[in-house]
C-alpha cells in the first residue's frame, strides 16, 4: 500500500520534473536560436508564460469527440512513456514501471501519440490538418525504422529488452553504449532529429506550407496540452537516449548536462537548416540513418 502511494507520488514528481525540464529546454532553445539570429530572444521562462496563457484561454472549438481526444492521446502517450523510463539510475523518487520487454512496449507507445493526433486532426475537416497528419505519419515511417533498428541492435547485442536492464549493464560495466555500438548511437541520434521535429524535419507543422498542420484547429487549452505533452515527450526522448546510450545519470545535474548536450544536436542543426520536403525527409532517414542501423545490427550480431 505504501509503496503504491510512493509510486504515485513518484510518478507525479517525475511528471512535474519532466514538464519543468522540457519547458525550460524549450525556452532555452528559443534563447539560443535567438542569439544565433542576432537577437536577445524571450526570457528562458517564456514557455511557462505561454503555457499558462494558453491554459487560461477559453476554448470554444467544436469539431467532435475525436478532436478532443487527439490532445489527450498525445498526453497519455507522453506520460505513459515517461513512466517506463528510468529517470535516474538509482533513485526511489523516480520509480519506473519497468518490466521485461518494456523497450518494445515503449516503441509502440511512443507512436501512439501521433496516431491519436491523427484521429483528432482528421476530424477537424481542415485540409491543412489532414495533410499535416499524412506527412507526420509518412515521416514517422521514415525515422522509426532506423530508430527501431538502433534499439534492436542494442537488444540483440545485450540480450535484454528491458531499459533498466540495458541501463544496468552500462552502469555496471562503466562503458556507454554510444562507444560500444557507435553505429546504433548514430542511427538513433539521426532518427531522433526527426522525432524532435525541428528543422529540417518540421514538415508536420510547417507554418509556411500548412499553417501549423495538425495544430491548425487547436488553440487555447488544446494547445496547452499539446505543448506540455510535447515538453514531456522531449524529456522522454532525451532521457531515453541518455539511458540507452550514455549510461544514464546518477543525479539530476548529470542528467541535465547530458540531456541538454544531446538536445543541442537537433537544436543547432535546426537553426541552420531549411525544411525538407516529405519525401526528401524519408529519403534522408532511409539513407545514412538506415545504413547506420543496419551496420549496428550487423555489428551487434557479429561482434
Amino acid at each position, binding site marked *: 500500500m505504501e509503496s503504491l502511494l510512493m509510486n504515485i507520488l513518484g510518478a507525479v514528481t517525475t511528471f512535474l520534473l519532466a514538464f519543468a525540464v522540457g519547458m525550460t529546454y524549450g525556452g532555452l532553445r*528559443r534563447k539560443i536560436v*535567438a542569439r544565433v*539570429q*542576432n*537577437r*536577445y*530572444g*524571450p526570457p528562458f521562462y*517564456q514557455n511557462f*508564460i*505561454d503555457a*499558462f*496563457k494558453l491554459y*487560461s*484561454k*477559453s*476554448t*470554444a*472549438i467544436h*469539431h467532435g469527440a475525436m478532436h478532443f481526444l487527439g490532445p489527450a492521446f498525445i498526453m497519455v502517450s507522453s506520460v505513459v512513456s515517461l513512466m517506463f523510463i528510468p529517470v535516474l539510475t538509482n533513485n526511489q523518487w523516480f520509480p519506473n514501471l519497468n518490466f521485461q520487454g518494456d523497450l518494445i512496449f515503449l516503441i509502440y507507445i511512443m507512436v501512439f501519440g501521433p496516431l491519436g493526433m491523427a484521429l483528432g486532426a482528421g476530424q*477537424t*475537416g*481542415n*485540409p491543412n490538418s489532414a495533410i499535416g497528419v499524412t506527412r507526420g505519419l509518412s515521416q514517422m515511417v521514415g525515422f522509426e525504422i532506423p530508430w527501431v533498428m538502433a534499439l534492436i541492435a542494442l537488444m540483440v547485442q545485450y540480450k535484454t529488452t528491458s531499459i533498466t536492464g540495458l541501463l544496468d549493464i552500462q552502469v555496471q560495466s562503466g562503458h556507454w553504449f554510444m562507444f560500444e555500438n557507435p553505429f546504433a548511437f548514430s542511427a538513433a541520434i539521426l532518427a531522433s532529429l526527426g522525432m524532435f521535429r525541428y528543422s529540417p524535419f518540421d514538415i508536420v*507543422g510547417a*507554418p509556411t506550407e500548412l*499553417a*501549423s498542420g495538425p*495544430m*491548425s*484547429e*487547436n*488553440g*487555447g487549452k488544446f*494547445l496547452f496540452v499539446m505543448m506540455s505533452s510535447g515538453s514531456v515527450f522531449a524529456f522522454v526522448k532525451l532521457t531515453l537516449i541518455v539511458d540507452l546510450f550514455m549510461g544514464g545519470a546518477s543525479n539530476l545535474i548529470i542528467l541535465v548536462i547530458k540531456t541538454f548536450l544531446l538536445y543541442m544536436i537537433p537544436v543547432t542543426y535546426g537553426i541552420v537548416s531549411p525544411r525538407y520536403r516529405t519525401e526528401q525527409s524519408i529519403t534522408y532517414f532511409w539513407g545514412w540513418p538506415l545504413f547506420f542501423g543496419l551496420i549496428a545490427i550487423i555489428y551487434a550480431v557479429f561482434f
Partner: protein
Amino acid sequence: MYNDKNKQKIVDIIKNAARKHSLWVLAYGTGCGAIEVPATMTSRYDAERLGVRGAATPRQADVLLITGYLTVKTLKRVIRVYEQMQDPKYVIGFGSCTINGGMYFDSYNTINQLDLYLPVDVYISGCMPRPEAVLEGFGKLQELIGKGIANGAQQYKENLDFYRENQKKVIKNWDFQDYNW
C-alpha cells in the same frame, strides 16, 4: 479571509500577467503595415523579447493586427478570422487607415473606421507605424491587459448586433465558398 471574489481577483491578476507577456500575433498581413511587422519581429527590434511571437492560425493567436486599410473583401475574412480566435483576443489597429480611412478615405473598396466592424483595443498612429511605434503599441496593449481593461472581445460579444449590422452593411455576400471546416 479569502472569499471567492478575492480569489477570483488574484487569479485574474496572475492570468493577466501571463497574458500580457505572451501575445501571439496572427500572421495575417492585411495591408501595407504588414511590411513593418517582420522588421518588428526580427533581429533588429525583436518583439519576442516582450513575449510577442507569431502564430500561424487564428485558433492559436491572441492578437490580430489590422495593418492598415481593410478592403471589403479582406474585411470579410478578417471578421471570420477574428471570430475563430479564442478568448481573450485583442485587436491592434495600425496607422491612419484604421482610424479614419487614412489615405483611402474616398476609395470605394476600403472601410474607413475599423471600430464599426471589430472592437479595437489599441490604435497606433503612423502611416505606417515604425517598429518602435509598433512596440509601443504592444506595450500599451500589455498595460491594458495588465489592468484587465483590454476587453474588446467582451464588447464584441455584448454588442454583436451592432457589429453585425455594420458588417452586413458593407459585406453584401456573407457566404464563404467551399469553406467547410
